[in-house]
Every structure is written in C-alpha cells, then in structure tokens.
C-alpha cells in the first residue's frame, strides 16, 4: 500500500504508486506522450519513472488511438500496461480502442482472455486551457460494459486507488483531475472534516464519506460527487459548520459501473441530495445517480435530486467565462441553501 500521509499531494501519491507498481510487477509497462525524464509528463505524474525503469517506460508519438491500441495488445499478451493520455479531451481518439477492443475481447471471446490495462488521463477545466483541453470526457464511457471508470478525488488515497485499478482484471479508465494534482490528500477527520469513513462498493472500490458534523448526528444535505469535485465541496464544510448546516459528502471512486447501494445509504441519511459533476448535467453521471436514488428511496427523498454541472456549451478560455460555465463552490452553496429553504 502507498503510505499516504496528510501531506502527500495527489500528484505525488500517484507518482509514488506508479513507481511501486513498476517495482512490484515486472509485467507493468508505462507508455504515453512526453513521459520520459527529465520532462516526466505534461502533469509530471510519470516523473522519475523512466530513469528508474528505462526498459519499461515508453514515450510514444502523438497517436492516442495507438497508445490505447498498443496497450490492448500488451494486455492481451500478458502485460499490465498503464497508458497516459496527456489531456482527457483526447480520449475521444481512443474511443474505438477502448470500446470495441479493450472492453470487447474478454466477453466476445467468451472469457478466454483478459485485458488488464489502465488508461490514466487528467480531466477537467479551471486552468484556462480552453474548449479542447478542459473537458471531462469520461462521460463518453459511462455504462460501457466491461470497462471500469475509476475517478480519484483528493478524499481518496489516489495512489492506492491507482494500484487497485492496476490490479483489476478488467480494463480501467482512470480519471485524474488537473486541479487536484497540487492539493494535499485529505484522508481523515481533520479540520472541517469531522468524520471520515471509507467503505468498499460491490466492485471492491472505495467510497469515501466525509461530514462536517460529528458522526452521530443526522445530515441536512447529502452531496454526491466524484473526482475533481472534492476541491469544490470541501471548502463548504467549514462555512456550513458555522451556519450549523450538516453536510454529508459521498465520493465513490468506481463511477461506472455504479453500485448504487452506498450512495443510497448516504442519500437516505438526509433525504436531500445534490449531485455534482464537472461535465454538463444532461445525460451525465448525475442522471444515473438520480434515477437510482429515486428508484431506491422513493418518498424518502424530501425533494428532487439536484444535479449541478457545467453549462451545456464549450468550456471557454477566458477566465471570466470559464468560471461561470463550470460549476463552482458558490453554485453548490446556493443549491444547498435553496434545497434547505424549499424543504
């Protein structure tokens, strides 16, 4: 296990995990664009790796379909590739390989092969990179059979999660978040986080629950979200504690397929649910969460599930626009107040 201390950053946690995976597993292979030292990758997650494991770290041409496709071939033939797609926006170029190759071979060959690969990629906006470098395109792969989507928030031990993904016999799209990289992981009841718990979903992936009130109390509102949204939700803890609003935040890490049970439990606690995702809400992650929660909880929900996300348009480069198109702490705060006012 990665020993995560509260001071380890998200990027450092991932970086160490990669090195440990490579050290422990001689079949692990890492590939991607610009990942060799001294550069060490656009977001530095692979830094140091090519120096330590020069024979198993490959810089690739700019050819995302092949980065995924080569990984599929490696995985079919006994290796455990971990590929990096420099920006998550470019995963669309690997969609055919993920959907029609990686996720198809095991089932269509009736179980005779496995494709244990991980494709890591940073998603998300907020850095002013504009319309083609800021999206959260994991949405393309929600619900694709036999493909797992794992998203690391900074309430998860990101490195440990990457190790779980690397040990998964199914192909995994591992979603990182650009704005989380420099943040320290937050893995315990600490500061405004008054209780912190991790359970495993039925796929064996952690679901983190954090509250801004002592464990025994009942929450006023449940915020369900994943990945980079932890950056927006956590700042509300302190503020709401001051106003005596009890918030329960629930962050699953396996976002597709989705085990609704832990989410339903978190939702039932308050009966008031806000789902936050970075991409546009229409047909997003929150749609499935909401549909599942309604089916599971029915009248236990005091109000319709609120879904928050980006406005249904491109993510502009200009900061003034980007801030407004993307969901923010302020938007979540308003939604909480509104929900409490109305119920």
């Amino acid at each position: 296990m990665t020993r995560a201390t509260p001071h380890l950053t998200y990027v450092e946690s991932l970086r160490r995990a990669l090195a440990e995976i490579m050290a422990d597993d001689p079949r692990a292979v890492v590939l991607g664009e610009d990942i060799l030292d001294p550069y060490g990758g656009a977001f530095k997650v692979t830094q140091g790796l090519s120096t330590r494991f020069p024979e198993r770290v490959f810089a690739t041409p700019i050819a995302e379909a092949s980065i995924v496709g080569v990984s599929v071939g490696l995985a079919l033939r006994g290796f455990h590739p971990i590929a990096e797609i420099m920006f998550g926006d470019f995963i669309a170029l690997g969609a055919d390989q993920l959907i029609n190759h990686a996720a198809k071979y095991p089932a269509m060959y009736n179980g005779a092969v496995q494709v244990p690969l991980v494709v890591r990629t940073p998603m998300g906006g907020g850095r002013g990179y504009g319309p083609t470098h800021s999206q959260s395109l994991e949405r393309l792969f929600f619900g694709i059979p036999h493909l797992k989507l794992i998203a690391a928030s900074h309430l998860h031990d990101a490195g440990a999660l990457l190790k779980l993904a690397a040990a998964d016999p199914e192909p995994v799209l591992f979603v990182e978040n650009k704005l989380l990289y420099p943040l320290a992981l937050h893995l315990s009841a600490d500061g405004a986080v008054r209780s912190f718990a991790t359970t495993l979903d039925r796929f064996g992936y952690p679901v983190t629950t954090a509250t801004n009130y002592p464990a025994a109390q009942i929450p006023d509102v449940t915020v369900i979200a994943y990945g980079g949204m932890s950056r927006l939700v956590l700042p509300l803890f302190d503020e709401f504690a001051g106003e005596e609003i009890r918030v329960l935040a629930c962050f699953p890490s396996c976002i597709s397929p989705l085990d609704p049970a832990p989410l339903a439990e978190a939702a039932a606690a308050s009966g008031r649910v806000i789902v936050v995702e970075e991409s546009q809400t229409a047909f997003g992650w929150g749609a499935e969460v909401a549909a599942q929660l309604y089916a599971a909880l029915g009248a236990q929900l005091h109000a319709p599930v609120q879904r928050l996300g980006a406005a249904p348009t491109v993510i502009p480069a200009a900061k003034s626009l980007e801030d407004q198109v993307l969901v923010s702490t302020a938007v979540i705060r308003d939604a909480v107040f509104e929900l409490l006012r109305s119920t």
Partner: protein
Amino acid sequence: MEHPLAELFYAQMALIRRTEQTFFDLYAQGQIHGTVHTSIGQEATAVGVVNALDRTRDVIFSSHRAHGHFIAYCDDVEGLVAELLGRAGGVCGGVGGTQHLHTGNLYTNGVQGGIVPNAVGAALAEKLKQSGAIVVVFLGDGTMGQGVVYESLNLASLWALPLLFVLEDNQYAQSTHKQFEHAGNLADRPTPFQIDRTELTADDVLAVHDAARHAVATVRTTGRPYFLMLNTYRLAPHSKGDDMRSEEELAAYRARDPLQRLAATLPEAKRAAIDAAIEARLDAAVVQALAMPPQTLVSFRQQGGGWQR
C-alpha cells in the same frame, strides 16, 4: 514433380475452400444467423503465410475474413463451424461469431484497422518477453485507408518490433475497387517508415510460402517489421451475395484459382482421397454442431459476459 509441401497445402486449402462453401450453404439454409465473409480464392495467402510461422509461439491478428487464417493455424473446423452456428461448443461459445475469433495465439476483430495497433502491442510484448516469437497481422487493401495502420507502421519501425504486416490485396473493399480508395501503389506505403517489403501475386501457394518464410525469417532475425503484399482475389461475394463485379472479370480470376493450380500438381487419386476426407469431416462437423445445444445466457454469463446488476 510433386512439391513436398503440395499435399499438405492442398489439404489445408481444400479444407478452407470447402468450409467456406459449407458456410454459404448453411447461410442459405438459414442456419447461420448474421453474416459471413469467406476467403474463397484467397486460400493461398492464409496457407502460404501461416505455415511459415512457428505455431507454438507466433501470434496472429486478423479481421473479418479470417476463416482461412484460423483453419491454417489450428485446423479446428469443428470449433469454427460450431461457432458460426452459435453453439456452446464453438471456439468462442458462439459469442464472437464469424468476425470475432480467438484460439491459441490467434485473435480477430471486426473493426477494420483496429487490430493493427493491438498487433503492435503484442509484438512489443513478445519483444519484452524475449520469446523469439513474431506477430503477424493480416489486413486488406481497403483497410489501408485507416489512419491507425500508419500509426502502427511508424511504431513498429520506430521501436524495432517483430511484426509482419501481411496485406491481402484482393483489389476490393466490399464493393469498391482500390483505385477509388487509394492514391498510389499500396506496396509503397511502408517505405517511408523504413519498413522493407515484398510484393507478389498469390496464385501459387508455394511461392507465397517461400516469400512468407523469407519474411518471417527476416522479422525473426532482425527483430524488425516487414511488409508482405500479396496480390490475391476473392472469388466469392464480399459477404453473402453482394457482388457487383463483372462475370468476365470473375471468370478471368477463376481461371487462375490457386486451389486448382495446386491441385493440378497432385495425382488425381491423392487429391480425391483428400477431398473425400474433407467432405466426410465437414459433414460430420455440421451434424455434430447442429446437435450441440445453442449457447445459453447462463453459461455465457459464467464464462465471458459475467456481469453484476
């Protein structure tokens, strides 16, 4: 003079031919659900190349027109017939069907071009394992339209991978002649990636085999990719009945049928004996497959499509 490999190759080619014809029959009878792409007329490429490989370790990727590669590789017509008939006893339990086959080190998929980077990854795997194995990827003239093929040529050469590209150029992609899909000569495409190539007409399986042995040896000894372009022709429709080519053109190629050409070098009796054995084997394969239960959802879930709702 009978070539020492002629009998073996004839047996394989005739088996492929008759299996493909059997599929057409089964399709016409409504036993085959879906589609079927046969390699009738192209048997020399499958037999010539696959017999140049080391079946104990080499790896094969192919796509929608792979029955010939499959049979030349593993001879398992029984498993193939059962697969196309959707039986539990098919090589992929009936899940894959004609386009999605796997057995041993052979893998096929139905998205044109998509297997090519998979083959690159497999070649990298064999290189890392230092297994001495090589990887062969079969692709068609039409498939040379896909960009990922060029990404793969580049990678295979850049990383010095033991990968043999075999282009089965049968001049057509479905209904479209290659002159309407490609600028220039396809044989030149690997050149700027510094991949050597041989181009030859694939009427004579023994010549194909020689060229393939040379290509395989080159890949194995240099550890670098190679490109073998085989000019062939499909004598049957693209899939089920969709043939727009002129009777004239077809007749000209029928006269050059690689199976007949090889047959002519064998004594009639030998040939007849082989043919008879194939008939009997195929009849039995069909009877046996039809008697098998269709694949069930329960066993598919247990084996391949396991899911938790």
